[in-house]
Structure formats: C-alpha cells, structure tokens
C-alpha cells in the first residue's frame, strides 16, 4: 500500500472469460478451491449445488452461467469466492482469483451504457487502474432471490 491516503476500497479481483471483475473485500468471507459439489435438483440453472464449507452447507452458483457466458471446464485456477450478503452466504465460481487491489471511491465510474446485454444488469461500476479495466459487480443483484424463482420456473429441466 503506497501512500494509503486515497485507498478507501479494497477489491478482490477475479477473472471470467478474459475479463476482470472485482468485488469489495468486505463482501468476501473466503476464497476456496473447487471441491465436490452436490447438485440440488429443481433449482435455477446457474445454481450448481451445495458444498460442505467447514461444516456449513453453502450454495454455489456459477458466475459464468449467471452472466449468460458459456460454461467452462473447472481447472486448477478455478476458484469459489464465498460471498456474504446480509444473512446469506453464497459461493461464486470464477475462472480465477488472485489479486487484491486498493482503489479510491472516486475512481469508480458508473457503468458505460453499452457493455454487452445481460451482465450489464449486475454491474455497479467500473474502475481503471493503469491499463486494466475492472468491472465492479453488484452482489445484491447477482444474488437476487426473486430471480432465483423465475429462473427455476423456466429452467426447470
């Protein structure tokens, strides 16, 4: 942390299909490697199932699927970001997660109007550090329970 003055936000950076996304560190409980996921039937397509996270059964969603990107095979790099929103704990599957950065609140700009159709709904803002563009995700919208219900209706398989 060089000159910690303006650093009011700590972000965890993760990758999804060559793009970089970020989530505030206070919304993250931990980052895990992918382990055995138990499928939960009759749930939305992006809900991959539940895992045993140190004795707590934790639901896991695929962020690729949530953002309507094509699914990818899990690799050694694949990580599960355990995110916390109010009293919910949900794991987000991402391609990789390996960076923590500090940004100032001012450096976050509102999302540009045209960023691809679906995922735009989940974007809170963007921030640029040097040449990297990071998309700040809106966890509240990602974990919106209403959408869980709608999705399960259509994707009931």
């Amino acid at each position, binding site marked *: 942390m060089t000159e910690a003055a303006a650093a009011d936000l700590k972000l965890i950076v993760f990758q999804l299909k060559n793009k970089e996304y970020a989530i505030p560190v206070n919304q993250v409980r931990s980052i895990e490697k992918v382990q055995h996921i138990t499928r*939960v*039937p*009759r*749930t939305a397509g992006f809900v991959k199932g539940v895992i*045993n996270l140190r*004795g707590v*059964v934790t639901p896991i969603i695929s962020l690729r699927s949530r953002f309507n990107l094509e699914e990818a095979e899990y690799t050694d790099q694949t990580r599960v970001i355990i995110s916390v929103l109010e009293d*919910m704990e949900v794991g987000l599957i991402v391609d990789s997660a390996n960076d923590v950065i500090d940004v100032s609140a001012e450096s976050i700009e509102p999302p540009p109007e045209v960023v691809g159709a679906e995922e735009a709904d989940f974007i809170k803002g963007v921030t640029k550090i040097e040449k990297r563009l990071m998309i700040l995700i809106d966890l509240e919208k990602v974990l919106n329970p209403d959408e869980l219900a709608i999705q399960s209706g259509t994707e009931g398989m």
Partner: protein
Amino acid sequence: MEMNQYLEVFIEESKEHLQACNEQLLELEKKPEDIKIVNEIFRSAHTLKGMSATMGYEDLANLTHQMENVLDAIRNQKIKVNAEILDVVFLAVDDLEAMVHSIAEGGDGKRDVSEAVAKLKLIEMGQNPAQAEAKAETAVAMAEPSAAVKSTYDEFEWTVIQQSREQGFEIYEISVALREDCLLKAARVYMIFEVLEKMGEVIKATPSVDQLEEEQFDQEFSITIVTQESREDVQQKLLKVSEVEKADVVPLSLDDLRQQEPEKEEEVRTPSAGSIVAETLSNEGKKAPAAKQASNKTIRVNIERLDILMNLFEELVIDRGRLEQISREVNNQELHETVEHMSRISGDLQNIILNMRMVPIETVFNRFPRMVRQLARDLNKKINLEIVGAETELDRTVIDEIGDPLVHLIRNALDHGVETPEIRKANGKSEEGSVILKAYHSGNHVFIEIEDDGAGINKEKVISKALKNGIITEQAAAALSDKQAYELIFASGFSTAEKISDVSGRGVGLDVVKNTIESLGGSVSIDSKVGQGSIFSIQLPLTLSIISVMLVEIEEEKFAIPLSSIIETAIIKKGDILSAHNQKVIDFRGKVVPLLSLKEIFNVPSEHQEGEFLSVVIVRKGEKMAGLIVDSFIGQQEVVLKSLGNYLTNVFAISGATILGNGQVALIVDCNALIK
C-alpha cells in the same frame, strides 16, 4: 451509564425470579401458613427490586417494592394470606412479567402500575376482609412481648444454641436498625459484625451475611449471637457503631426455641386445607431434587456458540473418518491405536455436545400451573393440574416450538374437556376435574400427553359438526373409525363447543397445533371415552438436529430419506408394476401404492437403463403411501440435519442437507412434499 452489556443478564435473571415467584405463590396458596415460602418470594422480589432499580426501570422497582412490603407484612404475620391477597400479588407479578417482557423486546419497560400498587398498598394497610381476624391472630402471636422470636433456626443452629447454653453462654437475638440516610450500609454491617465477633460468635443472621454484605436489606436486620457478655454491654457496644439507630438485644431462652420447634414441624407437614384451585402435584415430589439443583453450578451459553461448537465437531468427525481410512491403508499398529482412541473420545464428545443442547421440558411446563389456575377461575371450574416427568429432556429447538401447541391443548382440555362442577356432580364424578400433563422418553422420541377426566369426545357430535361444516362427506363419515372421527377436530374450521369462549377460541387452534407438531417432525393422536375423558398424545423427535435416515443412491448421487417416514423397503419386479390413470402403481400388501421415480423427480442425469428389478422405498405421509424408486440402498445412518442456507429456500421436495463421512453433502428428501 452503559447498561447494555448487563441488560441480557438482567432480563434472564428477572425472568427466573418471576418464575420463582409464580411457583412459590402457587405453593403458598396451598400452604398459606408456611413462612418459608413467603421468605422465598420475598427474596426473589427483593433481588428483582434491586436489579431493576440499578438498571433504571422505575416502574418495575416501584411495583416490586410495594409487593415486597406486602410480603414483608405477611412474613411478620401482620397480614394473613388469603385468596384475595394472592390474587392481587399474582396481578402484580403479571404486571412485572409484562414489563420485563417489554424490556426484553427492546421497550422501556414502562407500564401503568398504579392499580396494582394501590391494591397492594390497601393490603399493606390491612384493608381487606380478613383483616379483623388477622389482627386477632397477630395479637395472640404477639402475646409474649419480648419473646417474639424473629429468626427461625435449623437443626444445626439449634444444636449449637443448646450446647452453648449448656456451657453457660448467653444467646441474644439482636435487631439492628441503621439510620435511613446511611450511605454505606455494607460498611456498617461489616463494623457491626466485627464488634460482635469480638464478643462472641454469630450463629445466625437474617438476611444472610452474604445478602447483608451486598446491601440486600432495608434498614433492619437481625443477628443471633452466642456470647458471655451481658445484654447491656452488647447493646452499648453496638450503638457505638456510627449510623446505628437502634439495637434491640433480646435474650433467647430455650423455651422460646422449643416453642418454635414443633410449630415449625407442623408448618412443614400439614398440607393446609386452604382454597386450592390449581395444584401441581409434581411440586411435592420436586422438592428434594430442587434443593439439589440449587447446588449445581451452571453458566449461560449462547445457543449460537453451541451451534458453532457442533459445526466444528462435525468437521472433526469428518476428519476422523479420513484418518481411519488412512490408518487402514498405512497399516501401522501405533497409528491404529491412536486413531481408535481418538474415535472413542470423539464419540464421547459427541454425546456431550448433543446433550448440551437438551433442555428439561420443565421450562415449558412450569408456566402451566399458573395458566390453569387462572383459566379455572375464568371458567368457574375446579381443576387439578398434575405434571409428570417435567425433567424429560428435549432439544432446545423443539422446546422453543412446543410451548404454543401445548397451551392450545391445555386450554382445550380445560374448556371443552373438563365439565363444570355442577355437571360433574350430576354425573357422579368428583367436583374437581383433573388434567394430567405427562412427558416421557421412549426410544428416539419424546411423548407428551395431556389427559383429562372430562366429558370425552362425542363421536356423533363431531361427525355431525364435520358434515355441517363440509369437512367430510356423508359417505366418508359412515366409514370412519372412532380414532378417525376424533382426528376431525384437528381439521381447520372446526369448533365443537356450543358456545365460542375466549378461552379456546373458534376452532382455529387445533389445526394450528397439528401443523406445528408435524412441522417439528412429530405427530399427534387422540384417544377418548365418552364420559371418562380424553388423552391427546404428542410424539416428538428427541432432537431436530440429528435424525435417522436411510441413505439411497441414484446414479452417482446420494440422497437421505428420513426413517420416520419410511414404512419399509422392497425389491419389486418390473412386471408387477400396474398402471392406473397414467400413474404407475404397485400392489403393496393389498394396497394400491403409487410409484414415483426419484430419478425423474430430481432430474438425475441418467446413463443406465433400469434393470428387471427395482429397489423401492415405501414412504408415508399420514395414512397415504407412496413408493420411491431408487437405484440402491446404502444403509441406515444417524446424520446431522443442516439447512441449505438462506439463499436456497423452498427447494422442491428437499427439506435440508447433511454432511456424510467423506465430507460430501447429501440432500434430505422431504417425503411430505412428494405425497399429495
């Protein structure tokens, strides 16, 4: 002052003291002469007063103070206990409970207590019907002027007194009063004791020394000492301690004490014939264990911490499983032994952790004597409530839920079950109806029974009512067995009492009872004999956190089916499957049971074709059955029930999850959702 950190303790302790007040008041109602009980109540009220004043809840403190005055008057035999006085005290306790409740809910604990205070004041001044009589009695009691022995002595103290007397010591009972403006009461107490201990030996103090040191007294207290000094000397020395207003030294003669002795025994032994409305027989039997309990040391632990402990422990169990596997592979004798030892210890640990979550059902039962007393009065009935097995333990989560259903059932028994004294007399029964509340363990379940000796359930009446309300059809009604007919009273929109009373409502109660109990994984049944009474029997699982399941496999996935809903497992031939209305069914022991494929319901990715034989788990919901087709049975296991978290709620046909020995999660099938 920042009080938040004490608030929780305050609320918990207040509740305990109020509960103690309630219990002791009921006891007092049975034995109005027993001063010991009054002392108990006084002590609780006094502590409550002190605590609430410290916490700044003035209304609470005011009311307790007033109540304390009345109790003090009773204690000093200025007032005699009667039903009216007890009613007012009960009223005051109600107010106190309401205030504590309000504080617990985050309120300010304010409440208009003027009515209760005024009534208590009236009593304190002796303005009640029994007043004249009471005065006469006190006069008799006071007949021996100086010999009014204030303290009572137990056997040990009595022996000490006797022996000292034989050795030529004098025994004095000293009443010390401090000045009203005395600031450091505890310091004065200390000085007084120092003076006394120089002269002789203090054998008794009322209130106790501990309480005195904590300033838990008003202005006066009494001490009994054994000394060789003269009466005047003792008095002079005491008065030298500053801020001591008065020190009455009364020599105790053995006669005084002897007189007291038989009197005391009488108090203990004669169960008085006072106006008994609601009586808890268990109290009699409870006395001994209650005394023992007092010496048990306990601490309060937040239930969340226990949950965390449980979670950590489960982690340990999973690792234990892995270790066992590794040790088998490595085949090292020392490793074997260590792992085995660890397994045994963790097994013991598991028992302890599970037991920690168990709470005696007493915590729910102990509010019922009070409720029954009040209801019996409101309904003008005479009812004796008997509680059996209050020490039966249940998981905390079940305890929290079971209170309301029980209240409903008891109200129901009182209102619809037990008849009025006139009717009972006419039917040749004793005027006093009896309601027995019984809890006991059996296997992995706890049974709670509510039995009354009232009118019982009239089958014809129930059926005609159900027909009228459109709950069943005439055809169905004809085929009903007695039990099935009784079950109808659990249907929603059913009320058999001719009049709707405020006590047991409009028939919305009992179906709620049934739903609550079933949601806890339990069941409720009724047995009844016309004219002799009814028994409502509730069956509950011992704990909600650990259940027995049957693990089954479907392709690669494992599911757990609760044993409580399984009737049996079967292997059937494909050729035996019949078809009715597009529904596969089988003939199972003479019954037509629909078949469901879990593979289809749970959309399990399928690779194999079904073989010639199918494994079927026959499950039930109430009277209805269904057969679930699975790939194979793994076996029976005790598992820890876990929720899927707050994100995945309302997953179809899944009631929760559990963690298996290999660390993976298995889902628990909700059979109730599969059977319509």
